[in-house]
């Protein structure tokens, strides 16, 4: 682990620098990085204008990754996301023109505005990390990190993602309004876009991949598994949830906690790591039976004793 100390320090720099642009959202930035380190994808549920695009852009910039953005609309087709082959007159053959998904960091904006067909094209690509068009399989770049945003579903003209699709996102976060101090700084600052473009990468491609691999080696002991299982069993047995957490959700919880532990410069997972990522792992996966429950899902789960 000691050999990675340097890289982890650089990640801390990423968090710090991003924090200067997206003010007052240190935790959200750290969670986004956690998600990236755990090789998962992120869904941000928030109102427009909260800085979702900026967050994605900043992360891409600071990690030296290329970035693309897809604005989902209701008339969008899978080809608009994945790419299309076009016949070229000059050399008499079809040439593939990669779609916006061929980037390291992809911001899928307002994913619930598009039709299920297009949504699933994206979700499949996320899962497989490759796409197949006209019989040819093309790998997506690595690292591949999708940040999807979703408007609150009550808005008109949206196709809410079903739970099975949401399960493919490792974590969900929401940025929320900035606090008063950050808001004032934001108002007083110069144009953030210029600052953003001035950012230089803190970490190399290779180092990032190495860290992603190291996440799996973060120690998790039996005592910790007990805690995770206690949580999983609680969701499965309690009558308060429509259905319990899947095994994939359990793995997601463990991997996210590992990545968080790594960002905290620790070589093992402790219950606090679980507690930090827990609301973001379960927020989009668990649905309460009671519509306006007094306690949120996170509150209920965080009340489970640590064995």
């Amino acid at each position, binding site marked *: 682990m000691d050999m990675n100390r340097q890289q982890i320090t650089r990640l801390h720099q990423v968090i710090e620098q991003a924090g200067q642009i997206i003010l007052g959202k240190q935790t959200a930035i750290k969670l986004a990085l956690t998600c990236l380190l755990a090789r998962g994808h992120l869904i941000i549920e928030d109102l427009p204008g909260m800085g979702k695009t900026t967050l994605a852009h900043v992360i891409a910039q600071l990690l030296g990754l290329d970035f693309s953005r897809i604005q989902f609309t209701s008339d969008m087709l899978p080809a608009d996301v994945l790419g299309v082959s076009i016949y070229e007159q000059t050399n008499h053959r079809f040439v593939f023109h990669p779609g916006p998904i061929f980037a390291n960091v992809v911001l899928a904006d307002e994913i619930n505005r598009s039709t299920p067909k297009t949504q699933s094209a994206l979700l499949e690509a996320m899962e497989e990390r490759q796409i197949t068009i006209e019989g040819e399989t093309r790998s997506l770049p690595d690292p591949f990190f999708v940040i999807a945003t979703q408007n609150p579903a009550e808005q008109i003209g949206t196709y809410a993602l079903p739970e099975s699709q949401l399960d493919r996102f490792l974590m969900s976060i929401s940025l929320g309004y900035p606090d008063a101090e950050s808001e004032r700084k934001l108002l007083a600052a110069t144009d953030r876009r210029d600052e953003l473009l001035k950012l230089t990468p803190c970490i190399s491609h290779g180092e990032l991949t190495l860290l992603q691999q190291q996440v799996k080696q973060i*120690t*998790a*002991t039996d*005592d*910790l598994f007990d805690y995770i*299982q206690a949580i*999983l*069993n609680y969701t*499965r*047995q309690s*009558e308060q949830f429509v259905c319990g957490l899947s095994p994939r959700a359990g793995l997601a919880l463990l991997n996210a906690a590992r990545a968080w532990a790594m960002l905290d410069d*620790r*070589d*093992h*997972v*402790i*219950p*606090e790591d679980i*507690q930090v990522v827990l609301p973001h792992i379960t927020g989009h996966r668990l649905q309460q039976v009671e519509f306006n429950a007094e306690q949120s899902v996170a509150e209920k789960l*965080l*009340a*489970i*004793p*640590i064995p």
Partner: protein
Amino acid sequence: MTAELNQSRAATAFLLAGLTTAILPLLIQLPLLVGLFCAGLLLWRFLHDMGRVPLPRKPVLFGLLLLVMLGVFQHFHTIIGRHAGSALLICLLCLKLLELRTLRDVSMAVQLAFFSILAGFLFNQSIPAAVLMFAAVILLLGALLTFHHARAGYHSTAAVEKGHIAHAARMVLYAVPLMLILFVLFPRLNTTLWSLPEDASQGQTGLSGTMSPGLVSRLSNSPEVAFRAQFDTAPPDKLLRYWRGPVLWFFDGFTWSAPDSAPLLITTPVLEQKRNKISYHITLQPHQSTWLFALDMPGAVPDGALMNDALQLLSPQPVSKLLKYRVDSYLHYVLPRQSDRPNITFLAVPRHIGPQTRRLVQQLQRQHPAPEAFINAVLDHFRENDYYYSRTPPLLFDDPIDEFLFQSKRGYCEHYASTFTIMLRLAGIPARVVTGYQGGEMNPLSNYMIVRQSDAHAWSEVYLNDKGWVRVDPTAVIPVNRIENPADAVRLRPGLIDVSRYVDREWYKKTLKQFRFAVDVINNHWNQWVVGYNEKRQRSFFDIIGILEFGWYGIGYLLVAALSLVTLLIGFRILTLQRGKSDPVRRIYRRFLKKTARRKLYQAPTEGALSFAARVAERFPAQRTALLTIAETYNDLRYGHPDQDALAELRQAINNLRLTP
């Protein structure tokens, strides 16, 4: 959330094993068909769990249910009572296995199995039954634990499942002290709590109250204990160990019986002469009939017993549980002569019986007109002609007397007693048959005598005008060389033959014999102290330990107090065990929690060590570093890479911690 049964192979394996153990004591008491039926159902369930066969549908189950009801009714002619009820219970219990779908079904099956263990004790209260009970309870509890564990969705491995059995065993172990207290202190009732209708069809091993050819020899291979006797004086000489049982005088040509119950005596007959007094206790195994046994001839009727005018001891109720009584007998006695000679009852012989025998009797009577001389002549007849003592005599059909006397000439004691008695009656001498036991073996490891069913015997009693009723054992005249079975020879001729010829020389046979005696000593103690722990014994035990004077109320309080105390002790033990079970890390960390608790800071169950340390550090900023070190070291030990140095470090850090602001 449904209560769908979470299949675990180990869980059903435990359940099947536990169930089999639970119903085993019942199965051996019930018809073979019940056993086969249950085995079939168990096998069905087992194959289902192996994934081979599906479970039956509802109509099939219903059909099987009807089959069970009909079968039980057909066989027992009732569905209540000890045997029929038990048969029904275990058949239905095994049927339940075919519809275990939810956890509730499993709990129900286990409870039924517990009930069938209880039912098993209606038949058998021996040590093996008790051992089986423990095994069954442990397996059943283990099955319950495993089912619940699987239902809760915990990860199970073979080790975890074995752990459930160990856990169940621990639970049973904790229950043992409570069981003992209840057993010793809970008031015993003088009578059995329930009285179950006894099924007429069920025969008990032992004397039957009637005697026909083949009935006593049937017992000759049964090593079952009939009763045990513990002597206060020296045990009687081997030749004189005649244990008097049912006396029979009515002969229908084939079977001896005592149809009219003989009138009970109000006063005990005073023996005219009595010598060689023997005092002893008898611990009688339950045999479901009223007769009691005593050495020929009891001088007085034991407390609570009766005697009829055939001088047979009787119990007022059938002996359905172990019975202990005290008797004094006189080996040499002369009975008082009756005022009037025994009447025709003791002279009757069915008219069609024994034409050849009648001729023989007439011939002998001509030569020996005096009754005593005639008796000796008959005995000489047996002695001098080729009569054999055999455990497997030929079957007799129309006329057992003639056929035995003139054709087969091989018989067991009942043949000799029967024929001898008839011959005397034909000669006008009143005679009757006495059944009982002859012999008995001193247990060399302890001071008591074992009398087994194989010692069952029959002899005659003859009325002589000047001597009253006298015992004559016609079997006794058969020479040793005509006794076919060596065991019988040793039993009947203890002094007359070279026993060493029959003594087992092989060490393993000797050891086996020794082992059998040892087992019997244990059984005897079990009978005396556990099965025979009745109201009387309880009182005397209370007297010994000095709590009898408390009265029943006081003993009630004592019972509650003892139960509470033991429960508390066990609870304490479980709690400390759980703490002790925890690894040293937790133990040391608990010291830290004690220190913080003194400052009114408690770690919440949902709070990680690090968060808690940070919270404590807010109150005690000076100790911040120390607190965080403790939390980090603890976390590292529990969730990271445990090593001994870190443990020492943690201990050091916690010992050095002073929570002062």
